[in-house]
């Protein structure tokens, strides 16, 4: 079995990535982001973005409805908590399976069309899920109040094994309740597994097939390949990634709301992926971290923090600087995010990874030009039909 058979460069990538993820609580401390709640989100949305990139980055199919699978994953996980057990593993398993089934149905129908028609089909399915979860499906989703644990939940397996604890239980693994950074490390372990699988897919013949779909689907069909099953497999895999992310959201906070499925959530993962670099392995992860960092840290800045931050300046400059910069943080963090989107796309087509590649190329200029580039950027040509 060549499960762990990877080129050496990929092993190095994986090792470095693992190192970065595991040491996150340390290197994020000076940035003010080293607390479990946010780190968990970093790991979870990284999984979401990696999965999305398997579909969008490799096949070029731009799905605008991936949040639906995230939401389905969350709901499934919370139902598993409510009905069976507070253990995280069954919840994750069920969530991945159910969201995979959803992805199979939605993908089968949506993949009959290409281009923007595909995007709008996925968007329409996701919006239907969202609107139904809010209205008619309230018995399953608990509508606006979100699905939560209650004291009356049966929790069949837990009740059979042990006496019911007082109050609401929290998610656990083999009876061990997450505490402090343990929740993050659990998510991080799954992130590493998810990353490893993505690495495998990227370097596999299957991944090559997906890339071929992106570069010219018509020609693939002419050479006798039926591309549909490949695209559908990619769609289902990325739906399962989203389901896993949704389940982890429920594990870290046993609550599932419909707003997780709204188009803005689908749009967010698209933006994460494009911001980081479509079709690269690390790019979507960086995009996810950046957007989540802005959302949680920048939005919490206020004038006091800024005054302290700029205290090294002479006092007469400090005030205008604080006034101007306060427009970009706190309530106005969206403004910064919007400007970043514009600037990155204008100056770094191909996202942040393109910037990294360019900086790398600067350092490599001393070596002969025949040296291969680190990882060729995703082809940007999109031939018509």
């Amino acid at each position: 079995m060549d499960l762990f058979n990877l080129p050496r460069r990929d092993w190095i990538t994986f090792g470095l990535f693992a190192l970065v993820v595991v040491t996150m609580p340390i290197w994020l401390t000076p940035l003010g982001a080293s607390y479990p709640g946010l780190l968990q989100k970093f790991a979870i949305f990284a999984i979401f973005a990696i999965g999305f990139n398997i579909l969008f980055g490799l096949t070029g199919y731009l799905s605008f409805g991936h949040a639906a699978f995230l939401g389905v994953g969350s709901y499934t996980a919370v139902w598993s908590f409510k009905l069976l057990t507070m253990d995280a593993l069954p919840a994750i398993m069920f969530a991945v399976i159910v969201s995979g089934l959803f992805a199979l149905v939605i993908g089968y129908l949506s993949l009959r069309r290409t281009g923007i028609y595909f995007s709008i089909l996925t968007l329409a399915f996701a919006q239907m899920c969202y609107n139904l979860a809010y209205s008619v499906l309230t018995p399953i989703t608990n509508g606006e109040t979100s699905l939560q644990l209650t004291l009356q939940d049966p929790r069949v397996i837990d009740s059979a094994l042990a006496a019911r604890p007082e109050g609401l239980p929290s998610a656990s693994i083999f009876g061990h309740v997450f505490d402090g950074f343990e929740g993050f490390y659990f998510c991080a372990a799954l992130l590493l597994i998810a990353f490893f699988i993505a690495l495998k897919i990227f370097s596999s013949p299957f991944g090559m097939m997906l890339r071929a779909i992106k570069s010219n689907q018509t020609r693939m069909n002419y050479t006798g390949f039926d591309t549909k099953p490949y695209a559908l497999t990619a769609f289902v895999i990325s739906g399962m990634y989203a389901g896993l992310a949704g389940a982890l959201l429920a594990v870290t906070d046993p609550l599932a709301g419909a707003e997780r499925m709204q188009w803005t959530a689908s749009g967010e993962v698209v933006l994460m992926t494009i911001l980081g670099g479509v079709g690269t392995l690390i790019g979507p992860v960086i995009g996810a971290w950046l957007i989540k960092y802005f959302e949680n840290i920048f939005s919490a800045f206020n004038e006091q923090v800024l005054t302290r931050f700029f205290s090294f300046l002479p006092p007469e400059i400090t005030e205008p600087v604080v006034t101007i910069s306060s427009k970009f943080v706190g309530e106005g963090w969206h403004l910064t995010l919007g400007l970043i989107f514009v600037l990155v796309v204008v100056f770094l087509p191909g996202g942040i990874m393109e910037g990294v590649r360019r900086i790398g190329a600067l350092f490599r200029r001393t070596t002969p030009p025949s040296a291969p580039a680190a990882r060729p950027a995703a082809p940007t040509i999109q031939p018509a039909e």
Partner: protein
Amino acid sequence: MDAILAQLLNGLDKGGAYALIALGLTLVFGTLGVVNFAHGALFMLGAFCAVTFRQLITLETVTVDPTQLSAWGAPLEIRTPLAQTWFGDFGAVLVEYSVPFSILFAIPVMLVIGIAMERGIIKHFYKRPHAEQILVTFGLAIVLQEIVKAVFGPNPISQPMPTALRGAADIGVWIGLAPGAVSYPLWRLVYFLFSAGIIAAVFAFLRFTTFGMVVRAGMADRETVGLLGINIGRRFTIMFGLAAVVAGLAGVMYTPLVPPNYHMGMDFLVLSFVVVVVGGMGSLPGAVAAGFLLGILQSFASMNEIKQLIPGIDQIIIYLTAVVILLVRPRGLLGRRGMMES
């Protein structure tokens, strides 16, 4: 019968708004080939043109009249809008009909905003992948939204409609039904007629002017038109400005129906994308037809009789229709082959 007519009418004004926004979006797709996620923001900016205009003309001078006392004993303050001081009765009319008059204000403003946007950012993205166009225009939309939020605050600002148009029209009587059978708010009627007028004007402009003919030729085959020595790029820029004006006017006239706030554009954006795609990429008649179709279907689905029959249908009807149409007709209602399919 009258219930059906009433729902039909209810759908028309919303359909009008969808159709206007979708028309602008399709113009931009068709001419420049750009997926413009900032189009909803243009709609929102139009609405805030109306807000600004009203704030400008209702700037007041306060004079204190010491001979008269107000109800609680303080000297009476007489507030006179500047517009009234300057223009007399016409000023009063101006304040009363501030929303329709803002159209005159919005047209140049939106044209300038549209052209500035196209020249400043969008023009660098013609040949870039759609994903990057989406990211940059989405970023632009967020920036515009945040600027409006910083200037006008986060709360909706309601715009009064003219008193004369505040009532409801008894439309049933016009076609021989019993009085009171079908009544319809006048402003919605105005909105529908307005949007129909704008749509007709855009179509007439494209159909009957030389400029429009060149633009249509450019939409069909940009390269050949360019080879004939026509500066098609400049005309497309003007078309972008025109699309901005159409979106802006849709926003101006919508203000009395829903008080504008900074995120109203985003709320309309997704729906208008669905409308455009259901209509078929690159087809202007398709966009208009799909706008009215979805508006009317939405208002029918919110009838109680239908909601009892199929619970929840009012929540999903637009998306359900979109899915069905796209699965049955691969390129929407009237889409062109090969447009945005890769």
